C-alpha cells in the first residue's frame, strides 16, 4: 500500500457554488447584475487557465492508536484527539496533498499591485476552492479501489492546523508526499508555498 501516487494534472471543473459561497454570496440575499455575473465568470475562467492542479497521495497502515496518538510506519506519528476520534475505526490513513501551482499566486500578486483587488479576490477564491476540490477528486479516485477492497474512506478529512492537529505536522505530510516535486516549499513556520497548496488526512475503514 505504501507507494506514493502522484497526479501530474488533476482536471476538474471550478466548483462554482463553493467559489460564490467563499466570496460571500448568499442565495436569496445577494443581488448580482448580469454584467457582474459575467465578470465573475471571466475571473473564474482566468483562474482556471492559470491553475495547474497537481497532487500526491499515500496510503499508510496505522500501526497502533489510542485516544490521542496515531502511530504510522517508520516511527511517524500524528498527535490529535480530534483526529484520533475520526480514525477510531480506521486501519489505514490516506495522506493527500495538492497544489494549484505558482502561476495563479503570481497573477493575484500582479492584480493586487495593479489595484485590481476585485479580480485578485476572485482568483484567490477560485484557487482555494479548486485546490480543495482536488482533494475531493483524490478521495473519489481512491474510493473506487477501496470499494472493491471492501473498504471506504472516512466521511470527513482533517488538515494540519485545524482542531488540535498542530500545523507542525505539515512537515511530515510534506516529506511523505514529496510535495517538493511540484515546486511546493515549506516555510520555517510550516506554511506551504505557493499559498494555494493544501494537505489532508482521511481514514480508511473496513466495511462490513
Amino acid at each position: 500500500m505504501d507507494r506514493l501516487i502522484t497526479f501530474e494534472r488533476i482536471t476538474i471543473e471550478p466548483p462554482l457554488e463553493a467559489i460564490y459561497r467563499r466570496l460571500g454570496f448568499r442565495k436569496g440575499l445577494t443581488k448580482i447584475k448580469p454584467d457582474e455575473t459575467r465578470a465573475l465568470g471571466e475571473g473564474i475562467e482566468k483562474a482556471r487557465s492559470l491553475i495547474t492542479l497537481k497532487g500526491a497521495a499515500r496510503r499508510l497502515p496505522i500501526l497502533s492508536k489510542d485516544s490521542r496518538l496515531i502511530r504510522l510506519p517508520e516511527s511517524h506519528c500524528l498527535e490529535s484527539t480530534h483526529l484520533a476520534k475520526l480514525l477510531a475505526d480506521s486501519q489505514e490513513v490516506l495522506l493527500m496533498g495538492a497544489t494549484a501551482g505558482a502561476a495563479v499566486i503570481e497573477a493575484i500578486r500582479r492584480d493586487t499591485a495593479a489595484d485590481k483587488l476585485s479580480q485578485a479576490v476572485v482568483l484567490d477564491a477560485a484557487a482555494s476552492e479548486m485546490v480543495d476540490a482536488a482533494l475531493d477528486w483524490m478521495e473519489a479516485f481512491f474510493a473506487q479501489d477501496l470499494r472493491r477492497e471492501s473498504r471506504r474512506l472516512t466521511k470527513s478529512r482533517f488538515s494540519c492546523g485545524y482542531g488540535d492537529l498542530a500545523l507542525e505536522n505539515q512537515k511530515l505530510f510534506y516529506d511523505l508526499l514529496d510535495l517538493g516535486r511540484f515546486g511546493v516549499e515549506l516555510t520555517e513556520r510550516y506554511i506551504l508555498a505557493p499559498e494555494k497548496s493544501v494537505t489532508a488526512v482521511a481514514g480508511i475503514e473496513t466495511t462490513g
Partner: protein
Amino acid sequence: MAKGQRIFLDIMKKRPLILDGATGTELQKRGMPAGVCPELWCIENPSVIASVHSDYARAGCDVVYTCTFGANRFKLGQYGEPDARSVNRRLALIAREALRGKALVAGDIGPTGHFIQPFGEVDFEEAVAAFKEQVLGLLEGGVDCFVIETMMDIQEARAALIAVKETCDLFTMVTMTFERDGRTLNGTDPLTALTTLQALGADAVGCNCSTGPDDMVRFIEAMKPYAKIPLIAKPNAGLPKTVGDTTVYDMDAAEFASRAGALIAAGAGILGGCCGTTPGHLAALRKTVARKKPAPPLRKSLAALSSARKTLLFEPGRPLAVIGESINPTGRKALQEELREGKTALARQMARDQEMAGAALLDVNVGVPGIDQEKAMQEIVLALSIATELPLVIDSAKAEPIERALRVYPGRALINSISGEREKLRKLLPVAAKYGAMFILLPLTDKGIPETAEKRAVVVRAIEQEARKHGFTRDDFLVDGIVMTAASNPKAPQETIRTVRWATETFGARTVVGLSNVSFGMPERKWINTSFLAMAAASGLTAAIANPASEELMFVKNASDVLGGRDRDAAAWIAHCAKAAGSAKKGAPIETLPPERKVRQAILDGNREAVAGLVGETLKAGLDAAKLAQEIMIPAIVEVGERFGRKEYFLPQLIASGETMKIGMEALEPFLKGDLKAQRGTILIATVKGDIHDIGKNIVALMLRNHGFQVVDLGKDVAAERIVREIDRHRPQVVGLSALMTTTMTQMKEVIALARKQGEQCPFVVGGAVVTKAYAESIGAEYARDGVEAVQVIQRLIR
C-alpha cells in the same frame, strides 16, 4: 477482424451479448475476508471463484471475466507478489476449467491504481509493459477475449489496449467509468473515449461501474451516433447506500433487468452488471433481453479527432476549424532556444494563447536542426496534452517523431502530413493505422508538386488507394489543397481553390490549407490571408492552418461559418462578437440622474470606468469637492459596507465599489482644500512575520483608504521589530495586524508586547482566518471579522 469477433457479432444479430456481474461482492458473500488481495485469495481458494464463474454461466452470461482485475504488478506488489504473469495464467486456467466452454472467458484487465504519463508519474512504456505481463499470462491461461475495464484515465486505457493489440489479435472490449456528470474522474467524456479507443483498435467500447443503468443511458446515447463498433453498458445495481457498516445497492434483480430496454434503445449491444449485481441480476437481465435485437453500429468510419478531454468532429455543417500554427520553430528564435534546452514552457503558453484565441486544433512542430526530434516531440506532446484541451496535429518531415508522438498522445491525433512520396507512404501509413490517427493527405510525389488541381486529384486517388490497404477510408484524412505563393505564381491560389472544391464536391473528402503561404512576400499579408480564407471556405474548406491571434482572420472565419450555413442561429458569431466587444459596455452611467447622484450610483455599482469622469462632471456643475467627498462619496461607500453586512453584496461587489471609490477620490484629491486623509487619521497595517497570506489585509487597506484614512501598508511577512520601528516613524492612530495560520498568529502577541515594551500606546486591531475575538482580547487587541468591521472598529477607536 479480431479473432473471436464473429461469435460476438452473431449473438448481437439476435439479442444483446451478456457479460457477467460483480465478482468482488460475490466473493465476500462466499467467505473472502475484507482487506485481502482478491486475486491471491482466489488462487488459494479456487473452488470459490470457480463457483462464482459457474453461477454466472448458469445465469446465461455469454462472457465471464477472469478474476484478474487487480492482477497487475503494481497492485500485486502491494501484497508482496512479484509474478503477475503467473497469477494471471493461474486465474485464467481456473476460469476455463470452471466454465468448460459454457461461456467465453474474458481476460480482465483493471486499472493499476496509478496515473500514467502525462497525467501521473508512471512512464507510459512501464504501464504498457505491466499490462503485457497480464496479457501474456491470460493468453497462457487460454482466454477467449480481453476486457479492459473500470478505466478513469484514458491514457491508462490506451496503454492496456496497446499492450493487448501488440501481443495478440483477440476481440478486446474497453469500458471506462464515467461519473454522474458524464466525465471520467480525469475529465474524459463518453464521445471522446469512444473516438480515441475505437481509432486505436478497440472492438467494443462502453462504460461500467460508478453509476446505475439510468445514468448510463445518457453515456451510451452520446456515443451511439459516432460508434462504428458495438457499445457496452455494464452498470452497478443502482446507486450505493450505506446501511450500517455495509454498502448496498438499491436495485433488485427485476428492477435492474427492467432498465435493459432503455440501454438497448440508447444503442448498447453488450450488457452486463457491475458492483452490487449478482447471478440473479444477470439471469433476470438475460431473460428480459432474450428477444430484444440491438441496433448495429450506425457507421463504418468517423472523421473526428480527440484530446484527452475533447472531440472535434469533422461532420457536415460544422464550423471551419482553425489549426493554430504558432508551435513551430521556423522563424521563432525563442521557441528554437527552448526546444534546444528541452523546455516546454513557451510552447504551453502558445497553446493556451491559441486556444483562447479560438483555435480548434494545434499544430506541433519541433523541427530544429541538431536536436533529438523524437525526444523533443514526445516531451512537447506530453506537456501539451495537459496544457490544452485541443487535439493536436503532429507535424514533422520525419516518420520517427510522428510515431513517438502518436504512441504517447492520449487522444486521436492528426498527422501533418502523408504525401505520395514512396518512403513516406511506406513508413507512415502503417504507423497511422496502428495508432488510428487521421492524416493530412498531401498530394505531391517524389516528382514534386503537381501544378493543377486535376493532376493533384490523380495523386490524391493514388494515395487513397494505398491508404485503403491499411483500412483507411475517406473519413480518415483531409486533402491538402497545397497553397503556393501568389507573389511568385498568380495562378497558384486558383489551383488551390479548385483542388479544395474538387476534393469537397467530387471526391467527398475533407480539406485543409496552410493559409499564410499564399501571402508570402506581399505587404499587408493579413488581408490576402483573410480573403483567401473566405474564398476557400466558400469552396468547402474544412480546416486552415493559420494564426488564430489575427483578429481579422477570426472575424472572417466566423463570418464565413455564418454565411456557409456552418453556424446555426449564428450563435458562434454572436459569441465571437460579444467577446471581441469585451468590456465596452461596462460602466455606462445612468443618464437621467444629476451628476452627484451618478457618482453615488457609480460607487454603488462598482463602475470603475466611469467614476473619474463623473467626479469631474460633478465639480464642473459647481458642487464643492469636500461636500462631494463628505456628503456623497463616503456615505455611498458606507452604504456599500452596510449592504455587504446584510449579504446583499458579496466580496467582489464590495471590492469593486472600493476600487471605484479609490479612483473617484484620486480624481477629487487635487480639488480638496486641506488633507482629508490627515483629518481622519493614519493606520498602519501588516501581515505578521512568517505569514504569506495577505489578501484579507489588502482588502482592509482598500476599505480604510476609501473611508478617508491614510494607510501605511507594510506588506506581508513583516517582523515585529520592523512594525514597531514603523509605528515610531509614522505615529499611527491604530495598528492593524493579520495572520492566517495558527503558527503565525502568535506573532501578533510578540508585536504588541514589543510595542508596549518600547512605550507605544497605540491600539491594535487584529484579524485573519484563525484569529478569534477571545484571542484578540487575550493579547490586548481589538478584533475585526472583515474589512467592513475593521473600518467600524477603527472609527470607534479613533473617536
